[in-house]
């Protein structure tokens, strides 16, 4: 069994972003998704600091210190892109105008509760940023995370142990081992990486899993 790399996970997420979608990519691994958006689809990337139509990192010589992404790294604007102020950026988020928010996570519960803003580690101050706004406001929230912690503890839980970002918001989870949907009937496995079977995945997951009838192998290109 070969788990996906971080780049392969980002690639897998990108395959599901539809032509015409307005999408916000969270800080960290979700930012990588923009590198793998399929050719031929027009996808408008939103940034919470007032950008629609965000492009990739600038080429040498094209850097502009007034043009940054949500992680405060330098970025670019695609033709057709727009700048606007913070309140409008969050009207887009909170008013249900974004089709999709892809967010990193510490934990997701079997009912789609998301925990991704604090582990309550007292060695640094807590920060929430735009996470709660995105989790509540986007029309669809998909989480991207390693299937377990480094010591093998499941991140898909019956109930989240860490403080919630928002209850019942995640519809789909992409991990390094599987693609899973949160449904009214529980957590349904849509895809499994090569060499992994359901009992093995179940052993790494707290809530009971069901295998979809039309489940597939998750095969990512070498990246």
């Amino acid at each position, binding site marked *: 069994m070969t788990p996906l790399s971080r780049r392969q996970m980002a690639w897998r997420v990108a395959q599901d972003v539809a032509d015409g979608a307005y999408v916000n990519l969270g800080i960290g691994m979700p930012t990588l998704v923009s590198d793998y958006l399929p050719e031929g689809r027009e996808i408008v990337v939103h940034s919470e600091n007032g950008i629609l139509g965000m492009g990739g990192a600038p080429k040498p010589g094209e850097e502009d210190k*007034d*043009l940054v992404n949500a992680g405060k790294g330098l970025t670019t604007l695609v033709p057709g892109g727009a700048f606007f*102020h*913070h309140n409008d950026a969050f009207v887009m988020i909170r008013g249900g105008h974004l089709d999709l928010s892809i967010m990193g996570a510490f934990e997701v519960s079997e009912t789609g509760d998301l925990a991704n803003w604090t582990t309550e580690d007292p*060695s640094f*101050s807590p920060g929430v*940023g735009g996470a709660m706004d995105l989790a509540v406001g986007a029309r669809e929230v998909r989480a991207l995370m390693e299937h377990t912690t480094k010591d093998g503890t499941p991140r898909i839980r019956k109930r989240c142990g860490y403080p919630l970002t*928002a*209850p019942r918001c995640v519809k789909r989870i992409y991990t390094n081992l599987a693609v899973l949907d949160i449904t009214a009937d529980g957590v349904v496995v849509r895809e499994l990486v090569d060499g992994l079977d359901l009992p093995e995945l179940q052993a790494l997951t707290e809530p009971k899993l069901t295998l979809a009838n039309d489940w597939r192998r998750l095969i990512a290109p070498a990246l």
Partner: protein
Amino acid sequence: MIDKCVASLAEAVSGIADGMTLLCSGFGTVGEPVELIEAVVAQGARDLTIVSNNAGTGERGIAMLIREGRVRKVICSYPRSSDPHVFEALYQAGKIELELVPQGTLSERIRAAGAGIGGFYTRVSAGTKLGETKESRELDGALHVLERPIKADVALLKGDRADRWGNVVYRKSARNFNPVMAMAGRLSIIQVREIVALGTLDPEMIHTPGIFIDRVVVA
């Protein structure tokens, strides 16, 4: 005649008193009015509450004001921006207060103050630790929390170009919190790269109309 232009940073920040609440624009250092904030350091006001997205970057701007011990409380969404060591040291020592607010709620609470709205209900933070002490009610089948405006004495802002009436144009993502904070400050002060003659800025393209701005200074 209306002329909101002032000759110096010191004149721009005159009248800021101890204990005031200051809105400071910026997303990290982008759009942060670093020179105006450092003029407040020189001016001497203390016991301040700073409302900003972050809690200072490196040693300059908001970080300098915090390092100099002038800030009692920070209201922000994300204190740990790039290089937050000044804030972190004081926070770990229990010497500075933090009110953590989701970013869109922060922006909307500032807007509410500028728009004369007494409060609003939002689903954001309902059912979470940040919402647990707030008044809540179910609306349209979903739990909402009541959020109150953030009223501030002063807004410190950064624009690209302005005229003497206080009309402002920003540049790219440096616009961020500037327009909403301009509306909310009882005294809104903006530093700009350039002051241009009245009538030069395209009226179709003005981002902040001059009614929201009280003082303009070049920095």
